[in-house]
């Protein structure tokens, strides 16, 4: 038995390396790489100016980086950690989402009120879609049918048909919508309104509001509760919402929409990412310049890791 365990352990060690969290640092123009087992920084990589949104290709060969002030989406080869080329991105790319076809990248161009669709293989712009003022949050439904963009000053979710690249509907939400996240099944959409201080849960089929979630933290003024990043566990149990300058992450029961707890993290918490099969949650804390690590089972913050200046986005490579 012991031999078997040892052998299994050896095998795991051989086939898988440790997971790595990639954190974009908006004001130091770098990525911080964190070893998820050791919870230690293992590398810092220089990238374009003002890196914000980051995502992996589905095969984890590439990392796409919105280098906002370089007006480019950079493509990093994860084997070498070199930026191999830029994609045409439109002006000031901030956030983006990758279609399940692993090919079409939907980019929110904050300064020019459009969503740019880029073919990552041909490296060409295949469509630009007019949306509201200051497009920000982007998500693609798991079935690849819907693309949703949020516009921060128009205060809407814009529903784009992924097959035609036409804008087909708009949903009004509270002030300054920042982030949208589909549930695993794609049946629901969670959208945060930063200045409104709310999270809307919307039914994808009818595009009707199911529930408006509000937050209340003792000792924190309601104006400081500013929801941004959202992550949902695949088992449908929890939703986590980063509350910005309230310095807490809200834990929500994803079926009853009841707020279960508020976890104290670093200052101005913005984006979130799961690691280790969703047993850990990483948060980027802009003002304190660090990353908090939450144990998802115990709902406790277990570690704080120093990152660069103004960590913005985070993704984890398994």
């Amino acid at each position, binding site marked *: 038995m012991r031999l078997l365990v040892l052998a299994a352990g050896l095998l795991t060690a051989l086939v898988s390396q440790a997971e790595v969290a990639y954190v974009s640092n908006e004001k130091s123009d770098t990525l911080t790489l964190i070893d998820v087992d050791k919870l230690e920084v293992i590398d810092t990589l220089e990238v374009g100016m003002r890196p914000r949104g980051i995502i992996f290709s589905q095969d984890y060969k590439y990392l796409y980086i919105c280098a906002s002030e370089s007006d480019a989406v950079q493509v990093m080869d994860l084997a070498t950690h070199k930026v191999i080329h830029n994609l045409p991105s439109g002006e000031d790319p901030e956030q983006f989402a990758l279609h399940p076809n692993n090919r079409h990248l939907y980019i929110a161009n*904050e300064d020019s*009120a459009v969503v740019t669709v880029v073919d990552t293989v041909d490296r060409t712009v295949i469509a630009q879609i*007019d949306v509201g003022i200051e497009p920000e949050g982007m998500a693609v439904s798991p079935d690849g049918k819907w693309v949703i963009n949020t516009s921060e000053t128009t205060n809407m979710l814009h529903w784009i048909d992924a097959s035609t690249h036409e804008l*087909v*509907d708009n949903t009004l939400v509270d*002030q300054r919508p920042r982030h949208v996240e589909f549930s695993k099944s794609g049946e629901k959409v969670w959208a945060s309104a930063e*200045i409104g201080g709310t999270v809307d849960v919307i039914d994808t089929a009818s595009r009707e509001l199911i529930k408006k979630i509000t937050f209340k933290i003792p000792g924190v003024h309601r104006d400081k509760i*500013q929801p941004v990043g959202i992550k949902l566990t695949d088992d449908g149990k929890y939703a986590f919402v980063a509350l910005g300058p309230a310095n807490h992450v809200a834990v929500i029961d994803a079926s009853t929409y009841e707020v279960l707890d508020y976890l104290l993290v670093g200052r101005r918490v913005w984006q979130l990412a799961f690691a280790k099969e969703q047993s850990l949650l990483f948060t980027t804390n802009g003002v304190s310049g660090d990353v908090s690590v939450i144990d998802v089972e115990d709902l406790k913050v277990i570690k704080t890791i120093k990152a660069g200046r103004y960590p913005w986005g985070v993704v984890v490579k398994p």
Partner: protein
Amino acid sequence: MPAVANAKALNIDVIYVQQSSNQAAQPLLLKKTPGNLTIAGAELAIKDSNTTGRFLKHQYSLSGVTGDNSEEIVAALKQRLNGQPAILLTDLPTTTLKVVADLALANSSVIINAGEADNNLRVSQCRGGLLHTLASRAMLTDAMAQFFMARRWREWFVISGESDADKAYAESINRSAKRFGAKITEQKTWSFDTDLRRSAQREVPLFTQGEDYDVVLVADESDLFGNYIPNNTWLPRPVSGTHGLTPTTWHWALEQWGATQLQNRFYEQFGREMLDKDYAGWLAVRSISEAVTRTQSNDPKALYSYLMSNDFELAAFKGRKLSFRPWNGQLRQPIPLVHPKGLTSLSPQEGYLHPSTDLDTLGFDKPESRCDMAY
């Protein structure tokens, strides 16, 4: 362009009322006041609102009524309104604003003042239907006073010009001193009629001799002498007020909370920096369009009720939601403290608490206001 389900087509016309003499004077002729101050912000907000409006079938437009004096303006406006309710955005001195309000509020119009900081309009001359997006002088001097108290600059030397506006600013400084517990060691009026440009280094040190002070406060809204006070004071002290470290509704150096995007849009459209009254003009139109979006109405009375309700909230690049004070129609907002090339601080300062919102520690709070807001 597909619209939101059940959207009703609406036209929203905002009438911009400006008295040319309300544009800041330019006595020294070098620093020009942009000819489109205030209206530029309104124009940008019309454009922003139409971007949103196309998803809702809402079409916004801006048209102007201007004149050199109140008679001209009232005559033109009377013709324009023809007894109908309207949405007005004003950049008018108090005297003209009062007659415009008498005329327009009689027909259930809504007026948003984006050009006059007069405290009286927030304390005794406020009225139902009249809103203010430009910060009052009291909000500005309170913002400055909180910063001084946080820095422990408790003893103030005040220099005021002779104009009514300067006296009003100095009065506001006195009110803030009392409110936050500062001591005014000396208050002097600048009455020199000479051009200081060649003699400041000789005159100002002598003028600012006196009992020790922590900071010199200047009240010179028309730029007659204030520019020559910093670095020329008898004691080496910071200068603040209308010059030096200045509290203002808006400044081009603000970049947090997405403000960069607004600054970029403004610069792209007008080729200059966004100034305080431009921002107040932008706020006025954005408040209206937010109310139109949420109520699906273009009726001025309905819009006013919504703007004054607890439901109204506006994201406006200052890091938190803004709303109107029901007791005087003033938009609550954080106040930046700036120097010509950057941001020093943002008030309210930490530790200034208030039962409902710390934003109400700036300017006139409910008990201080003596207005009848019936509408």
